[in-house]
């Protein structure tokens, strides 16, 4: 199958498994359409043909046809067995990753995706993968259930706390596509989006080298803060230019007076910011939802300080 384009029913098919699944989908689809048209056609025909013409009309007894009855048990049974076997074979292939797969660790948490690459590079809400190479994602959740779904690869699997689950795929073309969370996980479930960037092998390698963590211990605090701002995807909800996204902008935040939902207020000093990051539900800024992921308690002391220094720098 050369055609990678989207069809009416299916998005682009960009993994090695996708065309196989699409053929199966369209097989079931067309068989269903034929059955549906036949049944509805018969129904419409009967309604027209045998429409009551006179109130005194009497019907005669119709013998039930044994052949017909056997046929419509046997034929659908054969059809579903074909479909079952086919679906079963593809399912087994989808469930077992090739042994030479490149492994990326995925952590889902309310409401973001973290990706960790073999060399220690970490990205948030951006999955970078090389084309033409089997990739295995080893996934777990830090809080509730999530589900990792990349439509163009036709892969999906629930992501559970305290357990690893996995999906694998081999991308066939470069590009940038959507990743969704498909297991309901609370307020910003619909905002738990990521992008997958499919690169050719050399671009991927360059990217990987650049993203490898340098010596973070020596990085100046505001710079480290900026790096974390990107990595932890704070930017998805907090702008730096004063505009409102899901949360308040960081511009001019430091030192300003904050008003909360319960009517109280406080000055945004270091300790307030610290609390806002570690325990966001403690005080909710007026006019906003309690939308901060509660999962930042894993940040180290130095990282926290760096983030606060970065926020302080946004005047």
């Amino acid at each position: 199958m050369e055609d990678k384009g989207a069809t009416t029913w299916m998005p682009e098919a960009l993994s090695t498994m996708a065309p196989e699944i699409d053929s199966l989908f369209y097989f079931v689809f067309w068989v269903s359409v034929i059955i549906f048209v036949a049944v509805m056609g018969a129904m419409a025909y009967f309604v027209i043909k045998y429409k009551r013409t006179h109130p005194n009309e009497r019907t005669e007894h119709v013998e039930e046809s044994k052949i017909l009855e056997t046929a419509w048990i046997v034929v659908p049974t054969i059809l579903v067995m074909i479909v079952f076997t086919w679906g079963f074979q593809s399912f087994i292939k989808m469930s077992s990753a090739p042994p030479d797969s490149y492994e990326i660790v995925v952590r889902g948490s309310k409401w973001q995706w973290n990706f960790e690459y073999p060399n220690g590079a970490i990205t948030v809400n951006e999955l970078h993968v090389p084309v033409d190479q089997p990739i295995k994602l080893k996934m777990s959740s830090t809080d509730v259930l999530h589900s990792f779904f990349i439509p163009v690869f036709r892969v999906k699997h629930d992501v559970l706390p305290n357990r690893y689950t996995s999906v694998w795929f081999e991308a066939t073309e470069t590009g940038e596509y959507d990743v969704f969370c498909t297991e309901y996980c609370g307020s910003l479930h619909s905002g738990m989006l990521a992008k997958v960037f499919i690169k050719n092998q050399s671009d991927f390698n360059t990217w990987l080298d650049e993203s490898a963590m340098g010596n973070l211990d020596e990085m100046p605090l505001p710079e480290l803060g900026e790096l974390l701002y990107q990595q932890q995807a704070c930017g998805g909800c907090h702008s730096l230019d004063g505009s409102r996204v899901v949360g308040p902008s960081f511009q001019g935040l430091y030192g300003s007076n904050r008003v909360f939902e319960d009517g109280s207020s406080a000055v945004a000093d270091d300790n307030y910011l610290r609390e806002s990051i570690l325990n966001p539900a403690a005080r909710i800024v007026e006019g906003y939802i309690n939308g901060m992921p509660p999962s930042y308690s894993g940040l180290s002391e130095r990282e926290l300080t760096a983030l606060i220094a970065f926020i302080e720098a946004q005047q």
Partner: protein
Amino acid sequence: MSQTASAVHHSPKENYLNHQKTVWSWMSTVDHKRIGVMYLVTLAVMFFIGGMLALLVRLELLTPGVTIMGPDTYNQVFTMHGIVMVFLFLVPSIPAILGNFVLPMHLGAIDVAFPRLNLASYYVYLAGGALVLFGLFAGEIDTGWTFYTPYSSSASSAVLFLTSAVFVAGFSSIFTGINFIVTIHKMRAPGLTWNRLSLFTWSIYATSIVQVLATPVIGITMVLLFFEKMLHIGIFDPALGGDPVLFQHFFWFYSHPAVYIMILPAFGVVSELIAPFCRQPISGYKFVALSSVAIAFLGFLVWGHHMFVSGQSVVSSVIFSLITYFIGIPTGVKVLNWVTTMYKGSIWLKTPFLYALSFLFLFTIGGLTGIMLGVLAIDIHLHDTYFVVSHFHYVMMGGTVVAAIGGLHYWWPKITGKMYDEVSAKIACGLIFVGFNLTFFPQLILGSQGMPRRYHDYVEAFAGLHMASTIGSWVLALGLFVVLGCFVHSLRRGKPAPSNPWGAATLEWTNATSPPSPHNFVTSPIVTHGPYDFDAVEEIFSGDGASGDGSVQMDQPPSVAPSSSAS
């Protein structure tokens, strides 16, 4: 044949509606017909609440981003919609309303086996319903109707309250189920052998079995949730060492059979609608009857098809997929049986029959998309997308609700003693059909293109189809309001109904007045024929052609004295 029909309209002076008039006489009634009417009113209110919530959901999705509400409110609204519709409306719906009214009459009985228990079920349902509504509005629950752990256990103890409330409502199902099973076994009129039971009776029988066997499982799940919360024993919550997937097993072990609680009665209603308006016995009667019972039992073995991507083992997924097909086939064969019933019939296009046609169209789509979802490799892609949302609306709304409304039109003259206006009823039926497809067909495409369910917001590419779907929901709502208007008009202005306006052959039509007397039948019927023996009209309707064999136009009400058939 003469049709002068000695227009003596038989309108009994005393019937079950007017023989006692006080409010207390209704509240304390043990008459199955009155209890059916009370359920009708109560469930209509529930359906209204659930429907309004659905309209809010669709309105929010009209455009991407915030249209009328933020994500937290949206999550609560779709949760409430799901819980109200599933637990408070669909599960009780047909058995509680039509089952109560019709079943004893189909059996030629005076009432159900345990009339007081029947009234108790109603109040238990009412209590459960009130608790659920209270829990929803006070507890701000946003877990979705599936209550998946650990999200639900971390959310709030309102979930615990709510599962208890659902269980209370469920108890009403258990009572009703036991009552119907005993009634069908013990209260059949002389001559009413199992082979002569109406298909409606068969399907209620199958449903009752599921109600009695499956409902306790939510009780067990609730107790486990309590243990976890109170005693901190890790069962479902991974933080305590529990397993969240276990909860899904428990949940679907009840909720999949519950799907059959919701759809099997609809099969029964559709059989009742098709036979009299085609004037042919349902083809493959035995198959249709017994496959309902078989489906009821097999329905307990397929819960895992909701969990193909949950982390359950690959082997279990394969087995669940296989058994799912074994259920799919008899269901499909039923559809074929209903269609072949029309062959060489004399098809009378009255509103109830139009609903039956509408059911066949929509339910077939629901069934075929179900087969699609049962294919393992495809389900991976479609799971938890709008494809699933659309699939179960085609089954639950296109199937159960459409059948229920059709049934309501069919038995309306019997229940109220009034006819409704055919023209506006047909318009409503058309609006519902068009509105329904406009709402849910685009969702199939949305889903297979990758739109996840339970999303407050969506990417730009999905905007067009979402808008179409929302507009469809308005047409659908309009249709439903026309139905309501049509019924209200019928109550106030409707022509008095003859006892057998459709010329049907089951006992509530042939042997009782419209509305029936307080004890259903004047003399206990003796049954000598099957429920759909239309080729023997002369024998059934004592042959004068004017006594309700359907050969008389409806605007000339036939005169019929309730005669016990051939006795």
